[in-house]
């Protein structure tokens, strides 16, 4: 397929994102008419105004931040590792963030101080990232292996926390947190995560040339003047900051980071650098759509974000397998 002009796909993806974001402001549990909401926007102190500015707007912005982090991280990691199965959780930071958050619930800190969960999540993500870095910085293979090792270690601790939960209610709270959600998130969460996500995404956005050259393999990329060791460290740092902060505020949201780059790739001629921006935009759109889904699908217990993305992501995986089987000789 001939690659579309450079600006076309990012523009379309941006348009889709903006439309979805606007849609997410108008759709939700509390049914509000369009005029009421528009009126609310003009008068933030009214009920409609509160719903929009204090509930739906931070929620939409958080969804955009988290979704774009996941999409961009997935695209960078797939390019760096030249592996279509690479996803943001690969480096252990997601499980690290989950562990930190679960610890805050375990010790009841979450009830004492609302932001304890995301704060400890950040600490957990940074700790896990540092561990992956310490063991895996020497080569791409060791980075993946170290990431897998750190991931399983964090999972083991997570399982232990559930096992020894102080009360059945705490165990329930922990497992539900891990399913991921954007509900009951406020501007505080946005402000807490924004600097980390911003810094991480800024780092990842500079990696276009490197992931392009890496399509020729480590050695050729190096011969073209790419600093492989630095590229690897920057990728870990960027993914650690962005995905660590994203997981800290929303819990585990799978498949977005894996799926977004795949959906984008055929439209940009498979060139790794050109998947970065559209993957971020598409990741944000997909997460917004999933979040809208959790709100408009009426269930007695809240349908969790991570559950919905997994339910939608798994069939995509099958499609991917079928497609690869058709393409491969």
């Amino acid at each position, binding site marked *: 397929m*001939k*690659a579309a002009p*450079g600006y076309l796909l990012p523009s379309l993806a941006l348009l889709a994102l903006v439309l979805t974001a606007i849609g997410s402001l108008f759709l939700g549990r509390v049914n509000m008419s369009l005029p009421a909401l528009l009126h609310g926007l003009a008068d933030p102190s009214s009920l409609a105004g509160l719903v929009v500015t204090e509930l739906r707007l931070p929620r939409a912005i958080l969804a955009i931040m988290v979704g774009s982090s996941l999409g961009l991280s997935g695209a960078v990691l797939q390019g760096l590792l*030249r592996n279509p199965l690479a996803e943001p959780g690969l480096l252990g930071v997601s499980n690290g963030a989950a562990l930190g958050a679960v610890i805050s619930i375990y010790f009841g800190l979450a009830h004492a101080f609302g932001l304890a969960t995301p704060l400890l999540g950040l600490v957990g993500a940074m700790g896990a990232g540092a561990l992956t870095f310490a063991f895996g910085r020497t080569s791409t293979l060791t980075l993946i292996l170290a990431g897998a090792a750190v991931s399983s270690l964090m999972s083991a601790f997570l399982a232990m926390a559930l096992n020894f939960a102080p009360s059945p209610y705490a165990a329930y709270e922990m497992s539900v947190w891990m399913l991921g959600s954007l509900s009951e998130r406020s501007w505080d969460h946005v402000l807490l995560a924004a600097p980390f996500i911003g810094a991480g995404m800024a780092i990842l956005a*500079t990696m*276009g*040339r490197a992931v*392009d*050259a*890496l*399509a*020729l*393999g480590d*050695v*050729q990329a*190096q*011969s*073209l*003047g*790419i*600093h492989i060791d630095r590229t690897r460290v920057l990728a870990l740092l960027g993914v650690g900051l962005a995905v660590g902060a994203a997981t800290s505020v929303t819990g585990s949201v799978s498949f977005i980071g894996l799926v977004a780059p795949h959906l984008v*790739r055929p439209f940009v*001629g*498979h*060139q*790794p650098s050109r998947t970065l921006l559209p993957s971020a935009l598409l990741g944000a759109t997909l997460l917004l759509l999933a979040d809208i889904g959790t709100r408009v699908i009426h269930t007695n217990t809240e349908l969790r974000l991570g559950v919905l993305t997994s339910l939608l992501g798994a069939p995509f995986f099958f499609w991917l397998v079928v497609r690869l089987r058709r393409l491969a000789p």
Partner: protein
Amino acid sequence: MSALAATHVTVRRDGRAIVDDVSVELAGGGFVALVGANGAGKSTLLSVLAGLIKPDTGGVTLDGAPLGGIDRRELAKRRAYLPQNPRAEWPIAVERVVALGLTPHLPAFGGLPGGLEPRLTQALEGCDLASQRLQAATTLSGGELARAMLARALIGDPQILIVDEPTAGLDPRHALDTMSRLQALAARGKLVIAALHDLTLAARYSTHLMALRQGRLAALGPTTETLTPDFVRRVFDVEARITGAGRDALVDYRGPVSG
């Protein structure tokens, strides 16, 4: 014209010297065929000469300046390197693969600047890839891929080209094609260093023969003077009969050296 010089280069792996005290001086205009048995250290020496591996002792200079002191991008503009069996991992269009050779010339962001577009066309046509321009690199045949990678290496107009076994896996016609392209580059004043296994091809196209045996430099000299039955015996432990002289030398292997 560029000059590449190695002085007392030694590379050790697990205590064993893969490349052992090699000193060579190579200059532009030469097409140097690097030969030696499997495991003689050819690939490692090429990586050192390309500045991709830092030797444990000794050093390499490019026009008198140590390779380690040259900025990576600057070095990438001046020398190109192709490993054994180079390939692209994604189904990227051939023109994009070839354009990757311009990486050190590009700013950090954005596509290919318009000014470089003619160079891309020229590089593609120079390697007979005009009709494959938009084809996915993963669907190319072995010969086409070899040409695409050569175009990738040459598009930046490097002074030095270092290639590891450029004819591996190629049929006779494509092997001859690749060799004559490398020869033409050297004739234009570039320095070409290529690891080769086929001594007859080396005799026909290269200007110099450089041989490694167990990591040590066994011979370095003009091809026509260096290629003798004694040379083949020393480097490969093989008895050979060489018929024809100079460029027409034909190397016929008779059997392993006895005793």
